[in-house]
């Protein structure tokens, strides 16, 4: 009984801040502009037009790329951090986290001044007598912005899993004849999968829905789905279409996450040789 009462605030909170807003978005997405509510699937049909689907495809592609790059850089980083002496480890983790305390917009702006036509990078190039290049307003710049901003989200969960891993398991593998490479492939990596999966989702989700990074570093109008949604709400003022795109994006992320979860559970819970 007490349990029921004490969870009350949680349900109230969820109702006000999660359930009701989502219901509102659903209602908006299922109606067309007008003074009264008129049910319609028009917004969803409209998104199926090639123009919009292309935007979605581009968003997914660049988010997947950013996630893979973050994984490729983040995993070794997490390993180095986890192996560090405790004395330096705290400082190193701090250094990784501190930039996240700075405003997201500011951090991305900083890249503009680096990648600019007259930015630091181009000045360096001309110092060596090399021709100037266009770094800014390219897909590469957006990718760089995503990797830079979201890398800590990949490193931290993997780092946490690695530091919690029982060293005896690694010793046991060595004891059974595994060299360092084999230990990694057969023990360390499979056991760190939960960290990898949560890192992947924590990078992929913001990457696929961002609009600030693409806005600042690309400037293009319909670059990513995030920009598209932002435009519908702030420029075109079509809340109905914007809500429909948001819903579709949310459903897509939900499906991706549930697939990832299933993958993780297969590897860790059921055991067997399926990871090898």
């Amino acid at each position: 009984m007490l349990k029921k009462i004490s969870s009350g605030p949680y349900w109230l909170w969820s109702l006000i801040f999660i359930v009701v807003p989502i219901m509102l978005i659903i209602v908006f997405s299922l109606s067309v502009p007008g003074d009264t509510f008129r049910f319609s699937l028009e917004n969803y049909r409209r998104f199926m037009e090639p123009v919009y689907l292309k935007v979605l495809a581009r968003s997914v592609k660049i988010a997947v790329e950013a996630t893979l790059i973050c994984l490729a850089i983040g995993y070794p980083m997490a390993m180095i951090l986890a192996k560090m002496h405790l004395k330096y480890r705290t400082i190193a983790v701090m250094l990784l986290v501190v930039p996240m305390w700075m405003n997201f917009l500011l951090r991305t702006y900083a890249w503009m001044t680096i990648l600019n036509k007259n930015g630091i990078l181009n000045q360096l190039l001309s110092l060596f007598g090399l021709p100037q290049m266009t770094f800014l307003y390219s897909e590469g710049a957006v990718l760089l912005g995503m990797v830079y901003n979201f890398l800590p989200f990949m490193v931290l969960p993997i780092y946490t899993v690695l530091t919690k891993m029982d060293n005896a398991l690694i010793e046991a593998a060595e004891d059974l004849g595994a060299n360092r490479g084999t230990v990694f492939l057969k023990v360390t990596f499979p056991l760190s999968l939960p960290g990898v999966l949560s890192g992947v989702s924590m990078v992929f989700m913001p990457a696929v829905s961002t609009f600030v990074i693409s806005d600042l570093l690309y400037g293009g109008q319909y670059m990513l789905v995030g920009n598209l949604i932002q435009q519908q709400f702030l420029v075109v003022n079509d809340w109905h279409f914007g809500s429909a795109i948001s819903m579709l994006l949310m459903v897509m992320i939900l499906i991706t996450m549930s697939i990832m979860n299933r993958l993780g559970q297969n590897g860790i819970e059921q055991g067997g040789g399926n990871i090898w």
Partner: protein
Amino acid sequence: MMDRIVNGINVSKVYNGVAVVKDIDFWVKKNQFLTILGPSGCGKTTTLRMIAGFEQPTAGHIFFEGLDITNIPPYKRAINTVFQKYALFPHLNIYENIAFGLRIKKLNEKEIEKRVARMLELVNLKGFEKRKVHSLSGGQQQRIAIARALVNEPKVLLLDEPLGALDLKLRKEMQIELKNMQRELGITFIYVTHDQEEALTMSDKIIIMNQGEIQQTGSPIDIYNEPENAFVADFIGESNIFDGTMPSDCRVLFANREFECVDSGFQTNESVDVVIRPEDVTLSEPEAGVLTGEVTSVVFKGVHYEMLIQEGPRTWMVHNTLMAPEGAMVGLSVLPNDIHIMHKEG
């Protein structure tokens, strides 16, 4: 020398300036069951980890079948370990856990299947192939850990307090099983424990360590009957330890009385530790004993009674199958052969 399968010479280990193992020599012969026994922090586990290769000695060398393996990494040693908390791989099922070492050796699937099945039979866990690690009890996990090590047919098996987490009954059963396995398979076992009873039950040879140094090496019978110093006497079984002096060879003065004993070679009037096992004290009517005392406590221990007897300022622990009631006056006497004289330490 040649029959020493593992041989450590002048082995030391220093962690952050603290000497954990201090210049010890040890060896084990082929097919022997060696136990390294000592209280926690005595350096026994560190010694075992150096044999396994997880730690490098700060000084000294370890030989395996006559070859120096001091700098050989663990995965190249024909030695396997059973870890204290089992260290089974949680992401693999029981079959894959046992097959781990065989897969690394790239054995074919048929051979792996055969060997895993044989191991599961050996540890009495047939039919557990597909089970998950965390669905097994502590005792079952321990058996799997043993199977996972033995399946590789190591020449030496290291066991780091493998029965520590099991309850008493299971521990006793596993002690007998381990000893049987060792005899049947003809593998050298090096076993680390702080449990003296475990050591006495299973070992061919015991090394007793304290504060990084070896106190005594010998068979269980030697160590029990002829402890070399008061630490060993106290650690192995129960002991009465009294202060005494040696007026001359085969004479010892303690409890205000001179006793006949069998030890000699001490300096005249040297201060010594006098060690007497509780079961070696004979109780009698007060007038028939050499000393007299009052029974202050009686505890029934199953086979015998454990009695505390106050004799002057000294408390004697006495084990006897007959009981003297609390408050009774009794006589105490000890045969010369049962009085052990030891040099005082430090």
